[in-house]
């Protein structure tokens, strides 16, 4: 019946699909870490799902936290800044970088968190510690993309891999 090896291969493998037909049931964050050599700056953009952040903040307090629209923007600014500092750390050649929180923005169902480090030279090696929504979401996956103007590398971090050690990209 199958005249074609490729067809057989397709039909031999199980399809794994999300349980629900609709909502996001995968837990992902993406952090882009971009080194801009002309400015000697490290620019970080973190994307998380807004409803995950909302659920996380609500789990930490009895108060009801609402995001997008924010029930209390200033309070949430503080929460997000603290959240980021506690859960994302960057080390250049064993020195922890002081990351400045710039702000945040909603884009559809995601929250973007903007942070930066100024007056920075590229290192020989670097380390990233990423515990975004870990252990709050047991299936949380955190993608980290490290870029400069020559190359880029992506990494998948999660509860089993919260620390990343690498030589600088080239």
């Amino acid at each position, binding site marked *: *019946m*199958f*005249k*074609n090896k*490729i*067809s057989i291969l*397709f*039909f031999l*493998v*199980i*399809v*794994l*699909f*999300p*349980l*629900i*037909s*609709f*909502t*996001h*049931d*995968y837990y*992902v964050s*993406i952090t882009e870490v*971009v080194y801009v050599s002309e400015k000697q700056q490290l*620019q*970080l*953009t973190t994307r998380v799902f807004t*409803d995950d952040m909302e659920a996380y903040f609500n789990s930490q307090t009895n108060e009801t936290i*609402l995001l*997008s*629209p924010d029930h209390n923007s200033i309070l949430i600014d503080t929460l997000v800044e603290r959240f980021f500092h506690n859960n994302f750390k960057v080390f250049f050649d064993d020195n922890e970088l002081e990351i400045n929180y*710039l*702000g945040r*923005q909603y*884009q*559809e*169902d995601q929250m*973007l968190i*903007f942070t*930066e480090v100024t007056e920075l030279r590229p290192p020989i090696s670097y380390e990233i510690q990423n*515990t975004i929504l*870990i*252990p*709050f979401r*047991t299936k949380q*996956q955190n*993608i980290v*993309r490290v870029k400069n103007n020559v190359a880029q590398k*992506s990494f*998948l971090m999660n*509860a*089993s891999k*919260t620390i990343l050690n690498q030589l600088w990209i080239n």
Partner: protein
Amino acid sequence: MKSNFLFFSFAFIFSGLLFSQEETPKAVQSGHKNNNNFKQLYEEFSTPNRFRTASGAPGIDYYQQQVDYIMNIELDDQNKKLYGEETITYTNNSPDDLAYLWLQLDQNIRKKDAPALEKNTSSFAAMEDVESFVEETFKEPFDGGFNIEYVKDSNGKPLRNTINQTMMRVDLPTPLKSGQQFVFSIKWWYNINNHVVDRARSGYEYFPKDDNRVYVIAQFFPRLAVYNDVEGWQNYQFWDNGEFALNFGNYEVNITVPEDHIMEATGELQNPKEVLSKVELQRYKKALNTFDKPVLIVNQEEAQIKEATKATKKSTWKFKAQNVRDFGFATSRRFIWDMMAVKVGNKNVIASSLYPKEGNPLWEEYSTKVVAHTLKVYSKYTFDYPYPKAVSVHSKNQGMEYPMICWNHGRPNEDGTYSDKVKYGMISVIIHEVGHNYFPMIVNSDERQWGWMDEGLDTFVQYLTEQEFEPNYPSRRGDPSKVIRYMSGDQDFISPIMSNPENVFQLGPNAYGKPATALNILRETIMGEELFDYAFKTYSQRWMFKHPSPEDFFRTMEDASAVDLDWFWRGWFYSTDVVDIGVKSLKRFYIASKPNKQVDDAVSEYGMTSDLFPDMVFMIDEESESFSEELKNNEMNSEVLKNYLEENKATLSGKTLPKYYYEIEFEKPGGIVMPIIVEYSYVDGTKEQVTYPVQVWRKNPQSVTKRITSNKEIVKVVIDPKAKTADVNLSNNSWPKEEIKSDFDKFKEAVKG
């Protein structure tokens, strides 16, 4: 004929110039296969046969099995158990004799020792909150799975059967011949799971305040697997993620529940007088003929009163459904029930909703209306909804579809307030799940193999339905710009739509978003609405109440439109390539009186001079070394051209030479070929959009050059100005080059300002 000779020799020389490069000895190149973007999909598709034609339609020998069920079900509310007994009539319409039948025992993924419980990797995390740790370490497995009491033939004789996890093989006493029927019975029971605590497509939600449950029940009976010409027996295990391949048939299902329950199910209720109170029956009859807004059969107050009762007497709801592939039902004493009639084609269809009070005020306001809207729009694009009804059931964290009934999330806060996100999330999921009646309940594709065939097609029509529900509806999927982030993401974490890698990441975009967006692009940009809608309708109607495979869809879309689409399926469905088309350069050319230096040099090699040329028009581009500023001033630099125009004035009927001559070069760093949509902006402020057909890429997939003439100076060129092609890289979409700011840069600028 000296001039002719000169012409031909010139042409010969010049054409040589075009193609010859520096002749240096090269190493022998290795060959390659046909990698052309427009290669037809002969190698990927099965050879057409008498079951499925090359046209993409059911063939002359197309067959499908039919399986009918007569079931008696009892729900034990107190003990959360379901008891069932079924008589199955299996009709073998295949040309083959069958020695055994395979049945699906989906509840068995919840058996204590189910392999599915161990299917995922697990590890000790660096840290875990204490509650999860304890739960994980001390977890008692749920005692789920079917407990089969008997499998008997129509004479009551036991049938030999073998259970392999979620599949059961029933060995037939004699092979079932082609065209014959086999009748047998099964009796079983199982423990119903809590679907909120243990995510599942069915089960109950427990409400501790009034000690009651809301049941959404599906996959509750041993049911036949599909046997067909493409798979033989579809007999992959149910791992709780892959969905279903199911047979059409007729169902008669009697369900016994506490008499204060309200129920909806697949099929038409046969005995409303027996199960509804007088008042409910009156309202029910009224609803059947009310078209403008839903009629409440059980209102919130009444449902709330029932929460305290817990009837001990039982009643039996009887349903009959024709030509359905599955059966689901929802039952609870907590349900509010509303219903209205909808005109679809020349029939009346019932739209109804079941929801506990936790769904209000949202559900009373929107659910049934959204169901009605969905039926109308989906019918427009495919076929008139053929079933008698469509039900939307409120269920926490759910979004799941069955014939004529579906479970949908959307719960406001306890105080009745809700965000836009909850509201639109609910409307979208209702549209999506009701839409599933079309794909895969009626256009019955194999979900376990090809999730995109129902999810992708449904999400696509869902997008059209959302846009018609409300102008500027915040659709999450469908618009090409929304799929860019996924498609341009790390290749390590994305897979082609048409493949099943072991660890498919981002399944939502993979099976829902990307195929839906691809179809949207096909409709709006490649084929146009008229050709697309006709082909899509043709596919839907060819395969309604049948089992299509992906090729049947691909072939039909081409067959009914005469638009070659192999390149499109290959790029969008079979690969993870991206769209990235840009303008590489825009060069201005001028008419010159003599040729450029390159031509001069070449010609002199042959011992000729350019004044011996027959009548030629010479073009020099502004970047060449032969270019001189004075070319810019003289409009009519070419005597030859001027004379020719004079001599042929009569036949040229007043046409004048364009002022501007350009050569534009397009590049394509992305793998997918697409038509090139270009917007030219002129110095006088006017704009013009031109679309070059995708075939421009057929010989050189990296570069396409176009010759343009104009009476107005071009000041700007933009590729795909309305973001219709999911172009992942906008930095090369403009001439002059425009810097594209990252989200980070845009944010910083906004903050500074």
